[in-house]
């Protein structure tokens, strides 16, 4: 029977997290959930690295810690960029929705309202 060392425990957890993350990424169609799933996958990989650091419990290796730290920074930057893009896409979607609803209102008859409503929203920076 294999002893359940810290390293093996971390590796098992990492495998489970990786499976959850990959499933989330591949099975959902929601864009934001996919981004979250990527973060879960990232965490799984960081756990693999941490497990590698404690492979020998008497001499903890500091290099994987540095790698995890760098990885967290990269993941944060990627997530921030993704959220920013998602909010811009959502703004586009909203302005199209507005356009549709105002076009329906057009039968009621206010061309003026439409053009006024458009200028602030339509061309977001």
């Amino acid at each position, binding site marked *: 029977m294999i002893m359940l060392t810290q390293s093996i425990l971390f590796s098992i957890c990492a495998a489970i997290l*990786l499976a959850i993350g990959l499933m989330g*990424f591949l099975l959902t169609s929601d*864009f934001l959930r*996919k*981004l979250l799933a*990527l973060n879960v*996958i*990232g965490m*799984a*990989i960081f756990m*693999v*690295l941490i*497990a*590698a650091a404690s*492979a020998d419990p008497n001499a903890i*290796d500091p*290099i*994987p810690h540095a*790698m995890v730290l*760098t*990885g967290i920074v*990269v993941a944060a*930057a*990627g997530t921030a*960029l*993704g959220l920013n*893009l*998602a909010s*811009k*896409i959502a703004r*586009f979607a909203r302005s199209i929705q507005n356009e549709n609803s105002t076009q329906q209102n057009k039968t009621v008859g206010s061309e003026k309202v439409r053009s006024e409503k458009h200028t602030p929203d339509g061309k977001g920076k």
Partner: protein
Amino acid sequence: MPPTFYVISTPLLLVLPLFTAILCFVVPSISIKRYISIFVAVILVIICILQASYVLDSAEPLHVIVGGWEPPLGIKLVVNGFGSIMLLMTSIIGLAITFYSIHYFESNDKESRFWPLWWFLITGLLGVFVSSDIFNTYIMLELLGLASVSLIAIQGTQKALQASYQYLLVGLLGSLLYLLGVAIIYRTYGVLDNELLAELAQNNLSTKLALAFITLGMMMKCALFPLHFWLPEAHSNASAPVSAMLSALVIKAAFFILFTFWFEILTPVVTMSAVTLMGFLGACAVIYGSYRAFTAPRLKLLVAYSTVAQIGYLFLAFPLMIDTPELARTAIIYFIVAHGCAKAAMFLSAGSIQKAAGHDRLAELKGIVIHLPVSIFIFAVASASLIGLPPSGGFIAKWLLLKNAVQSGQWWWVVTLFIGGLLASAYLFRVLNLTFTSVDQAPILSGTYSEKKLLGAAVLAIITILIGLNAIWLTSMIGSSA
């Protein structure tokens, strides 16, 4: 010990563009950004020419130990034969596109965002090619990915934003899979340096697993069939300079990493069946990409699908690496250079057509050659290279592949080469046919347009012909660098 100039200039390849990116971010005036960019791009070309001539002459890689920290703790930079040619190509195409970009953007707002991101992209590219540490390569890959995504997004249209978001997801997943491979390698061998790893690498399960993850990640990044789904949208919705850079160089960076892992670092686990699988996927990419290019309704979409097809050729050389590594390596490098120059020239000329016509719907571009003779001419020269017509670099690249396939007794890859060349001529002549004929139906172009910006693209088109004419010189240069 190499001369001091080369030792200093290698880290400069990273520091200079990084510093320029930050400078372009801070400097308020657009014209100063342009001057700085041109200046730095020229300096990079000079450094890369000197380095390539040194590395290819001395026929041994240039090792630079940054800050005096030896591996395994420190990070080493290495310029090898393959890397030096990639660096040279990156700097020359980068300079040509920088020239083009100066005249391309209409809105100052877009252009002022473009320059810093552009230089981050170049930093990432050069970084991938000089890095000799698998974790450092990951950092450069992420820098490259985030810069590419942002460059697509500055186009600002809804389609471009959606394409860039999809590209971000695929890119992040790809580099995370790569990182997982790196983590497994570190756990197994305890080193990150390319050369130390190459000495230690053995054929065991964890190495196979690591190579599989890295391959999957890099396949996503270089859009090998069937993981190419993101590329056509991303490359066709970006602005022309960005499309050119993404198609000519960014996917090649992922290919460069893949190639390094398969044939330089983890060679013991590479088997004949594995390389044949990659060759098969490459063949599928050639045929599927060419077919989709033929049916594409828009010009830039057609060029983007052509990239999917052309990437396939690079993987066709994988099965040939086992028996005839020297020849296959030369063919791959030659193909990368020929395709890089031709595809960049093609995207730049397509961009100028799109700009002048206001759209790039192929059906409405009939007879446009009377308005844009230079653009169409550059497009035609680049087409000749992509099809593989004789005096061009593309012809020599395909010829090397063909000779190689016959020599190593794997003639069936030749069939793919022929079908691919035939399909390429079908989809590219479709464009030329439309633009050259029925001149009387030519659309009336509104607004002013000039073809002055195409100087860079013209230079690239000339290079594609020159490397075909100087084939012996170039192949011997590449061959000696092994």
